[in-house]
C-alpha cells in the first residue's frame, strides 16, 4: 500500500539528509508503528507519505514514494487526499471550520461526496469517536482530548485507505488514548485501513501494532519487523519490554497480559521482598521540612472560568522536598490548579498560599522566588534569539548573579552552545532550557505542566533524574501529567482530579496500584505486589542474584 524506494530527504540548507536509505513496503491493512528517538526524522517519513514532503516543506526527495500506486512526485497532497488522511501533532492547527460537525464534513466536501453519504459518515464518525454530544460545539471551546478526536474524525470521514498519524495520543489522558487506539484498531480490522503512526508513548500503542519500523539513529537506515523482534533491539521501548528483557523472557511480551502469564515465577521471587527505595523517589520529607510552613497550601479553592467551575473546593498541601503528581482526565482542572498557584487565575473562593504569599496579589518579580511554572508549551517562556541572551535575561529577571542561569543550563543541557536559537532545540532540550530559566530564581515550589509531552524515553529518563535531584535539594514539586510511568517513578503522592474536584489523594503506591487507568505497566504485571518501576525490580533481582 505504501512503498518507499531508496528514499532520502534533504532539507534546504541542511548538510546531511534528514532521512536516508528508506526502502520498505507497508502492506495493505496493517497497523504500522514508526518508532525511534527524537530527531531521527519520523515526521519527515510520515509527511513523505501524504506528499507534504517535498511539495509543501521544500527540500529534495530522492527515490520514490508511492501510495496505492500513486507517485507522490507527480501527485500533490490535495490529489492524494482521497487515499491518505493525515493528522499532525497539533490538532488546532488542523482545523479549517468552526464547529465540530462542519469540521468532520470538510474533507468530504472537498472530495465532492454526495450529501447523503456525507451525512451518514458524519453520524457514524460522531458515534465512533464519542463526539455526538459535542456536534454543535465551537472547536475553540473543546478540551485537548476532544480536539484530538475531532481531528482524527475529520480525516476518517473520507474513508482513506491510508491513515497517517503523528503522535495521536501524546496529549490525551490514558483512557481517552485507549479509546482513540481502539478506534484505529477497529478501522484496521473492519475496514482494512492501513495505518502508519509515530508515537513516543510505546506502552500505549505497541500492543496494537502489526509491524514496527525502527529508525535507530539520525541518518541510519530503518529496520522493519514484527513488534517483538524490533523491541528486542530497540533503544526505545516501553516498561513492559524492559521488564521482559530484565527477566529474560522469550519471546518478549508486548502486552501486560502476555507479561502476566510469564510473570508468575518473578512474582514468587519478589513476594517476600519489600520494594527498595532505589529507583523510586527518596522517602518523602521528614518532619523538619515543615519548619518553615508548607511550600504551598490550598484550602477550599474554587476557580470559576466562564460559566463553569474549573475547580471546586480543592484542598492541597505540598511540603518542601515532596513531589506530587496531579492526574486526571483532560479538562479536569490540572492546569487551572497550577496556574492558580502562580497567580494567573484568581480564586473565586477559598485561599491559596505559596510560601505564605497570596499568588495573584503578589508582584510577579517577588513571586518568582517562591514558585516557578514550566507551562505545557515551554516555548511560551522563550523570547530571545539565542540561549545566551535567554540566560542573561533570566539572571536579570531573578536578580541572580550573572551566569547563574548558564550554570543551570550546562547542568541540564551539557552539549548546547550559547548561540543556538531556542526554536532550533528539540522538545526535550527546550523543556530543559525553560526549566533552567525558571530555576534561576531558586523557587521553593516548582510546577511542571505535562512535562513529558513529545519526549522520548531517553529525554524522559534525564528529566526524571533532574526532578529527583531537585526534590532531594528540598524543592517542592507538583507535576500535572497523563504519564502514569512518570508519576510512578517520581511522585511521593498522587492527587487525582475529576471535574475540578479532588477525588483521591494519597501515597503513589496506594493510589496507582489500585487504579486500572492510572497504574503503571510494572504494577499491572506484578499486581497485587506493590512494585511500580523497572529499576526497582532490577535492584531487587541484583540483590538476590
Amino acid at each position, binding site marked *: 500500500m505504501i512503498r518507499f524506494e531508496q528514499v532520502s530527504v534533504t532539507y534546504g540548507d541542511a548538510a546531511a539528509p534528514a532521512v536516508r536509505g528508506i526502502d520498505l513496503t507497508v502492506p495493505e491493512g496493517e497497523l504500522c508503528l514508526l518508532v525511534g528517538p527524537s530527531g531521527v526524522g519520523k515526521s519527515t517519513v510520515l509527511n513523505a507519505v501524504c506528499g507534504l514532503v517535498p511539495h509543501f516543506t521544500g527540500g529534495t526527495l530522492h527515490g520514490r514514494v508511492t501510495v496505492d500506486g500513486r507517485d507522490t512526485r507527480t501527485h500533490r497532497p490535495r490529489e492524494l487526499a482521497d487515499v491518505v488522511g493525515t493528522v499532525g501533532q497539533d490538532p488546532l492547527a488542523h482545523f479549517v471550520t*468552526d464547529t465540530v460537525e462542519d469540521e468532520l464534513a470538510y474533507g468530504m466536501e472537498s472530495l465532492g461526496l454526495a450529501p447523503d453519504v456525507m451525512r451518514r459518515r458524519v453520524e457514524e464518525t460522531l458515534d465512533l469517536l464519542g463526539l455526538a454530544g459535542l456536534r454543535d460545539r465551537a472547536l*475553540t471551546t473543546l478540551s485537548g482530548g476532544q480536539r484530538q478526536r475531532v481531528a482524527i474524525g475529520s480525516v476518517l470521514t473520507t474513508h482513506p485507505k491510508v491513515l497517517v498519524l503523528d503522535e495521536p495520543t501524546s496529549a490525551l489522558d490514558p483512557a481517552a488514548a485507549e479509546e482513540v487506539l481502539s478506534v484505529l484498531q477497529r478501522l484496521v480490522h473492519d475496514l482494512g485501513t492501513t495505518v502508519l503512526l509515530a508515537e513516543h508513548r510505546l506502552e500505549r500503542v505497541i500492543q496494537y501494532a502489526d509491524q514496527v519500523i525502527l529508525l535507530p539513529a539520525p541518518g541510519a537506515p530503518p529496520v522493519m519487523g514484527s513488534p517483538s523482534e524490533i523491541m528486542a533491539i530497540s533503544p526505545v521501548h516501553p516498561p513492559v519490554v524492559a521488564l521482559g528483557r530484565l527477566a529474560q523472557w522469550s519471546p518478549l511480551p508486548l502486552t501486560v497480559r502476555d507479561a502476566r502469564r510469564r510473570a508468575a515465577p518473578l512474582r514468587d521471587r519478589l513476594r517476600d521482598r519489600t520494594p527498595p527505595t532505589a529507583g523510586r523517589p527518596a522517602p518523602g520529607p521528614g518532619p523538619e521540612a515543615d519548619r518553615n510552613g508548607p511550600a504551598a497550601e490550598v484550602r477550599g479553592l474554587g476557580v470559576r472560568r466562564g460559566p463553569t467551575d474549573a475547580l471546586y473546593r480543592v484542598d492541597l498541601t505540598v511540603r518542601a522536598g515532596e513531589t506530587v503528581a496531579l492526574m486526571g482526565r483532560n479538562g479536569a482542572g490540572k492546569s487551572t490548579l497550577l496556574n492558580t498557584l502562580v497567580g494567573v487565575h484568581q480564586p473565586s473562593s477559598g485561599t491559596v498560599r505559596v510560601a505564605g504569599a497570596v499568588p495573584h496579589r503578589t508582584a510577579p518579580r517577588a513571586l518568582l522566588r517562591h514558585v516557578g511554572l514550566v507551562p505545557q508549551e515551554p516555548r511560551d517562556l522563550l523570547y530571545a534569539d539565542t540561549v545566551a541572551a535567554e540566560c542573561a535575561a533570566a539572571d536579570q529577571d531573578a536578580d541572580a548573579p550573572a551566569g547563574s542561569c548558564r550554570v543551570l543550563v550546562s547542568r541540564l543541557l551539557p552539549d548546547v552552545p550559547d548561540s543556538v536559537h531556542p526554536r532550533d532545540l528539540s522538545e526535550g532540550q527546550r523543556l530543559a532550557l525553560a526549566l533552567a530559566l525558571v530555576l534561576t530564581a531558586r523557587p521553593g515550589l516548582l510546577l511542571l505542566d505535562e512535562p513529558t509531552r513529545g519526549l522520548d524515553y531517553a529525554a524522559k529518563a534525564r528529566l526524571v533524574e533532574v526532578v529527583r535531584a531537585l526534590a532531594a535539594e528540598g524543592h517542592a514539586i507538583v507535576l500535572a501529567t497523563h504519564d502514569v510511568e512518570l508519576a510512578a517513578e517520581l511522585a511521593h503522592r498522587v492527587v487525582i482530579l475529576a471535574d475540578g474536584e479532588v477525588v483521591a489523594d494519597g501515597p503513589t503506591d496506594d493510589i496507582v496500584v489500585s487504579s486500572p*487507568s492510572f497504574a503503571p505497566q510494572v504494577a499491572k504485571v506484578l499486581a497485587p505486589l506493590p512494585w511500580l518501576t523497572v529499576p526497582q525490580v532490577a535492584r531487587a533481582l541484583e540483590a538476590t542474584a
Partner: protein
Amino acid sequence: MSAPQATRTTALHAGAWWLWALGLATAASRTTNPLLLGLLVGVAGYVVAARRTDAPWARSYGAFVKVGLVVLGIRLVFAFFLGSPIPGTHTLLTLPEVPLPDWAQGVRIGGRVTAEGMVFALYDGLKLAALLICVGAANALANPSRLLKSLPGALYEAGVAVVVAMTFAPNLIADVQRLRAARRLRGRPDRGVTALLQVGLPVLEGALERSVALAAAMDARGYGRSAQVPRAVRHTTSVLTLGGLLGICAGTYGLLGDTGAGYGLPLLLAGLTAALAGLRLGGRRSLRTRYRPERWGVRAWLVSGSGVAVAVLMIWANGYAPAALHPPAVPLTTPVLPLWPAVSVLLGLLPALVAPVPRAPERPRRAERAPSGTRAVRNGRDDGDDRLRGAGGHPGGGPHSPQHTKEPTP
C-alpha cells in the same frame, strides 16, 4: 405554529436573518423620526435577546451597539464645534469663532450653536446608529461562516479564505493572553502596554507558523482540488465574467450620470446576467459538495418577509405621511409617533415568534451536585476505586457532555 428548538436541521438560513436585518436597516434609512428609530432599534434588540445563541459570534451585538453610540456622539460633537448649515433661532450658546482664510469659505469653526442644528444632528446620528445596530443584529443572529457557505461554487474557495481569516483573530487574542500570562512566569509584569508590545513578536511568529501548518493541513485534506474543464468552457467563463463586470460598471455609470439614463438600465441588467452566468459556469471547475446546507423553509420566508415588509411599508409611508417620518428641525417641533408606520415597524418582531429557539445556555454546573462534592472520597484504596473507574470509563465526557450525569456518586 410555535417555534421549535434550534438544531442544525431546523436552524434558520443565515440569509433570512440578513434579509430581515437589512429590511430594518432600509426602514431606518428612510426616516429621521427619533421615536420610529428608537422603535426599530428596540425591535432589533428584542429579537436578538430572544433568539441569539451563546456562540462566540453572537457576542458581537454589544460591540455594534457601542459603535453606534460612538457614531452618534461624534456626529453631535462635530455639529457642536463645526456648526451646521441649518438656520436656527434658538441659540444655546456662542463659541468663539476661529478666523479662517478666504479659501476656506463655507467652513466654520466655533460660532453659534443652535438648538435646531443640534436636533438635526441628533436625528441624523440616530439614523446612522440604528443602521449599525441592525447590521449588528444580523451578525449576532447568523453565523457569518454559514452565510459564506451559501456562496456559489466558484466563490467557495475565496469564502473559505475569509472564514479562516475570521477564525484567525480570536486565535491571535488567545495567543496574546497566553503569552502575557507566560510573562508572569518569567517574573515580568503581565499587565500594561509594555507587556502587550513585548509579546508582539512571539505572537506574530506563532501566527505565521500556524498559518503555514493550516495551509499544509488544508492541502492534505483536498482544498483546491478541481475538476478538468474543457478549454472552451474555461474561455467562455472568463469572457462572460469579465464582460459582465464591465457591463455592470458601464450600466451603473449610465444610471447615475445625467446623459445615459436610456441605456443604463438595460446595460446593467445584461451585465448582471452575464456575470451570474459566468459564476455559474465557473462553478463547474469546483468539485465541492455541500454538507447539510441550510434549507430555505417557511420560517425563513416569514423572517425575511417580515424584514422586507417593514422596509416596503416604511417606503410607502414616505408617500402618505412624509411630515411625520421627517419631523422638521426648523421650526423646532416635538416629534410624534405616527400610528401606521409604528405598527408596520412592529411587524419586524415576527422572528421573535417564529424563528427556532436556541438551546438554553447551560446553567453553571455544580449547583445541584454540591452535596456529593463535599463527600469526595479521599482515599484511593477502598471506595475511591469505584470513582476512578467511573472517571476513567467516560473519557469522552467533557464538562458539557451528557455522560457526565452517569458518573457514579459514592
